[in-house]
C-alpha cells in the first residue's frame, strides 16, 4: 500500500520554541487521519508544517512519495499540491460560492471548471447556493463551500484544521459523517485536526493522539479505544476509570471487581500493582450477577443511563445501562465484567 503522507522524526519550532517533536506517522492512500489532542498540544502546528506554512526544524515530510521537506529543502506551500480547510473557512467575501470553489482551478477550461464545480456542489449539497455570496450562508453551508473549494483542484492530500469547531454541536457529527462520505467517494486522502474525539471517531480511519508536542499513539479508533498505548490516551479517549489491581499471573489481575483478564499476556511481573482501565461498556448490568455495586449517580444518555457505581472497597466504576432498566440512587445492582482485552498500566 502506498502512503500518501509520511512523516519521519519531524520536529517543528515556532519562534525558537520546539512545539512538535519527533513525529512519525504514515497515512495510506484514501484514508482519513486525525490528529487529536487538547488545545496547545501542537496538532495545528504539525498540520501547518505538513501544508508548508511552517518550516520543519528537522525530519522528513513526504507527500505522495515526494519529499517536500527535509534538512536540505522545504518546498513552499504552493508547490505541495495540498488542499486546506481553515477553522474560520476563510471564504473570499468578494466571490460567489461557485467562484470560490473554482478559485484554485487555474488553467482548466471554462466548461471543465463548471463541471467540477457542479460535481462538488452536488456531492456537498450546495447546488442551490452557487450564486450566493459567503456572508449570506449559514456556518454549516460555509463549511461545505470551504471543503468544496479545497477539494476542487484534486489535491494530493486534504488538510482540515479544526473544521467543525465553528459549527453548532448538534451539527458537528452529522456534517463530519457527510464529509467523510464525500471524501471517500472521491477517494481523497485527508488529515484533520480536532480536539473532539467524537468528531475524530465520526470522520477518521486513523487517529493520532498528541500531547505536549508528542504523538502518543497512531492507530484506528477501535484500537485507540480498546488498546490505548498509555494511561493518557486511555483517559483522553472515551470514558472510563482506572481500578487498582494486583497481578496474579502473566494474564490475570485481581481487582475490586474480581479477577480480570483473558488469554493475552499483559507483561507485568507477578505481584506488582497495576491500574486497570474499565470502560462503561465493559461493565454489564446483570441482576443475576453475584457482584453488586451501589448506584451513586446516574446521567441520562438517551438510549441508556450512564451509572456511576461504588464498589465494595469504595472505588468507583461506570456502566452504560439500557434505559428501560431504572434504578434509584443508593440502590444496589448486580454487575458483571465483559471485556475482550485487559488494559493495564503500571500503577
Amino acid at each position, binding site marked *: 500500500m502506498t502512503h500518501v503522507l509520511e512523516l519521519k522524526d519531524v520536529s517543528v519550532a515556532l519562534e525558537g520554541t520546539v512545539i512538535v517533536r519527533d513525529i512519525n506517522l504514515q497515512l495510506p492512500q484514501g484514508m482519513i487521519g486525525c490528529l487529536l489532542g487538547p488545545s496547545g498540544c501542537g496538532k495545528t502546528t504539525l498540520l501547518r508544517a505538513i*501544508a508548508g*506554512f511552517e518550516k520543519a526544524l528537522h525530519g522528513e515530510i513526504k507527500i505522495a512519495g515526494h519529499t517536500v521537506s527535509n534538512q536540505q529543502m522545504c518546498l513552499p506551500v504552493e*508547490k505541495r499540491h495540498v*488542499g*486546506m480547510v481553515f477553522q474560520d473557512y476563510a471564504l473570499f467575501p468578494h466571490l460567489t460560492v461557485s467562484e470560490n470553489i473554482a478559485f*484554485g482551478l487555474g488553467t482548466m477550461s471554462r466548461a471543465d471548471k463548471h463541471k467540477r464545480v457542479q460535481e462538488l456542489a452536488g456531492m456537498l449539497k450546495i447546488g442551490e447556493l452557487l450564486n450566493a455570496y459567503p*456572508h449570506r450562508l449559514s456556518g454549516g453551508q460555509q463549511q461545505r463551500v470551504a471543503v468544496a473549494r479545497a477539494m476542487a483542484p484534486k*489535491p494530493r492530500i486534504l488538510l482540515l484544521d479544526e473544521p467543525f469547531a465553528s459549527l453548532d454541536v448538534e451539527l458537528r457529527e452529522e456534517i463530519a459523517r457527510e464529509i467523510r462520505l464525500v471524501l471517500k467517494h472521491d477517494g481523497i486522502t485527508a488529515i484533520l485536526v480536532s480536539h473532539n474525539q467524537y468528531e475524530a471517531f465520526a470522520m477518521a480511519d486513523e487517529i493520532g493522539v498528541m500531547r505536549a508536542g508528542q504523538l502518543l499513539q497512531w492507530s484506528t479508533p477501535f484500537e485507540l479505544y480498546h488498546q490505548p498505548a498509555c494511561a493518557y490516551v486511555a483517559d483522553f479517549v472515551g470514558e472510563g476509570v482506572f481500578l487498582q489491581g494486583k497481578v496474579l499471573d502473566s494474564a490475570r489481575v485481581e481487582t475490586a471487581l474480581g479477577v480480570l483478564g483473558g488469554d493475552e499476556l499483559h507483561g507485568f511481573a507477578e505481584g506488582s500493582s497495576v491500574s486497570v482501565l474499565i470502560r462503561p461498556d465493559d461493565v454489564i448490568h446483570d441482576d443475576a450477577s453475584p457482584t453488586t455495586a451501589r448506584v451513586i449517580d446516574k446521567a441520562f444518555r438517551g438510549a441508556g443511563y450512564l451509572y456511576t457505581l461504588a464498589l465494595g472497597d469504595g472505588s468507583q466504576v461506570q456502566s452504560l445501562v439500557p434505559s428501560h432498566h431504572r434504578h434509584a440512587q443508593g440502590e444496589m445492582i448486580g454487575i458483571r465484567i465483559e471485556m475482550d482485552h485487559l488494559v493495564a498500566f503500571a500503577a
Partner: protein
Amino acid sequence: MDKAPEGALSSLKTGFSNRLPTLGILLLCLLLSVPVLTILASVTNSSDGVWQHLYDTVLGDYVTHSLTLLVGVGLMVLVLGIGPAWLVTMTRFPGSRILEWALVLPLAMPAYIIAYTYTGMLDVGGPLQLWIRETFELRFGEYWFPQIRSLNGAVVMLSLVLYPYVYLLSRMAFIEQSVCVLEVSRTLGATPFQAFTRVAIPLARPAIIAGLSLVLMETLADYGTVQYFGISAFTTGIFRTWFGLGSITAAAQLAAVLMIFILFLILAEHWSRQKARYHHTSNKYTRLPQIELTGWKRAGAMTYCILPVLLGFVIPFVQLSMWAVDTWHLIDKESFLTLFFNSLELASITAVIALLLGLFITYSKRLRPTLATRGMVRILGLGYAIPGTVIAVGVLIPFAWFDNTVDAWMREHFDIATGLLLSGTLVAVVFAYLVRFLPVSLNTLDAGLGKIKPTMDDVGRSMGLKPLQILRRVHVPIMRGSLLTASLLVFVDVLKELPATLILRPFNFNTLAIRTYELANQERLAEASSTALMIVLAGIIPVIILSQTISRSRPGHDART
C-alpha cells in the same frame, strides 16, 4: 484564532518571501525618506545664536499658538465629525440620505480658500459688517462681531474643512460595528444615547483617533490659513526664521522639532490602531436598524448634521460662485482650461503612483514585517504633517545635488553637459507630492489589508498561487474600497496642494491652486474665486464617490435599498 498573529504571516517562515524584492522596498522607502531625513539631519548643525533669539522672543508664541490650534481643531472636529456620523448611520430623518454624503463635501474645500472666503464676507470691511454699520448707523467698535482673522477664526476655518476625516472614519467604524453589541447594551438598560456613548464610541475609538490624527497632522502642516490670518505658529515661524532671519539651519531645526512632535502623534495613532484588532466584534452582519426620528429629536438631528455642511461647504461655495459670476468676464478662459487639466493630470498621476507604491509597500510589510520595513514606513508617515514648502526644499536639495553631481561627472568623463535632469521637472513635483501624501495611501491600505484575515493568504497559497497572484486575485478585490479611498484622498489632496507645486514646478506650468493663490495673494479675492471654485468642483466628484464607497463597506449592506 490563535494561530498566526496578525501581520506576521506564515509565509515568513517558509522562506518564500525571500524572493520578493525586500531590498527594493527598503531602497524605495529610503529614497522617499530623503527629504524628511535631509531636514532631520539639520538638527546637528549650529545655527549661530538664532535659536537663542527665537527662544527669547517668539518661540513661546509659536508653541502656544500651535498647541492652541491643535487642541481647538481637535475638539471641534470631534464634535462636528462623530455626532453626525452616528446620526446618519443609526437614524433616519428628512435629508439624512443626502447628508450621508454631503457631510464629506468640505473635504473638497482647501483650508486657505475657505479662509479667504469667510474673511471676504466677515472681515471689518466685508459686506456683513458693512450692512450692520449702514443699517444701524453704527461705527466699528459700537457693536460686537467675532474677529475672523484670529486664532479662534483659524480653529474654526480648519475644523470646518478637516472634520470630514473624523466623520468618514468614525462612520466607517459605526457601519462595521456589530448591531448585536449595541442591542446587548440596550437589553442591559442603556438608552440609545448611552449605547452611543458607552458602547459605540469606545468601539469606534481607534477609527476616531486615526481620523483625528490625520486632522492634527493637516493642522500642523497648514501654512496658508495661519499665514493669511497673521498667526505666528510653527509653520509661519519656520518661514520667518528661514527668510526673515536668513537661517535655513534654524528653520530646518524648527521643522525637525515639529517632526519629532508628529512622530509621537503617529506612534500614538499606531498604538491605537493596533488595539483596534481586538475590537472587531463580529463577522455576522444584519441590516442596520435605522431609527426613524420624530419631533424635536428630528429637528435637532437635522440642525446638527446640516450645520457642518452649511458652514463648511454651502456658504463658502455660494459666496465663491457669486464672486465668480461677478468676475467671470475678467477670466482668461483659454488658460483656465489648461490650468484645470494640469491640476487633474498631476492629481491623477500622483494618485495612481501613490496607490501602487502604497500597495507594494504595505503588502511587503504584511509578508515580511521586519523592523527595517516598519521603521521606514513610520518615517514615510511623517511627510503628511510637514508643511509643503519644507518638503519642497527637502526635495530640491537632494535633487539638485544629484543633478549637479551627474552633470559634473559626465562633463569630466564624457565632456557632456547633462544639466538639470530632475530639478525643475514634474518628476520633482510628483516626488514631493508622494513624500507628502503617500502616508495617506499607506495608512488607508494598511488598515484595509489588516482587515483581511491571514488565512485568506493561506488559502491562496495552498491553491498554488504566488504572493503577487494572491494580491491580485484575493486582496485587491477584497479591499477595493480601501484602494478607491486611498487614491481619492490623495487625488483630492494633490488638487488642493499649493506650496510644493509653486516651488518645484517647471517653466510655464500652472495649476488651479497656484492661480488662486496668486490672485488671493494680491488681495483680489473675487477674481481668485473662479479657479478656487474649479478646485472645489474637481474635488466634489471624488469626494462623493468616497462617501458612497464607505456606505457600501458593510458586507451585504446596499446603501440604496
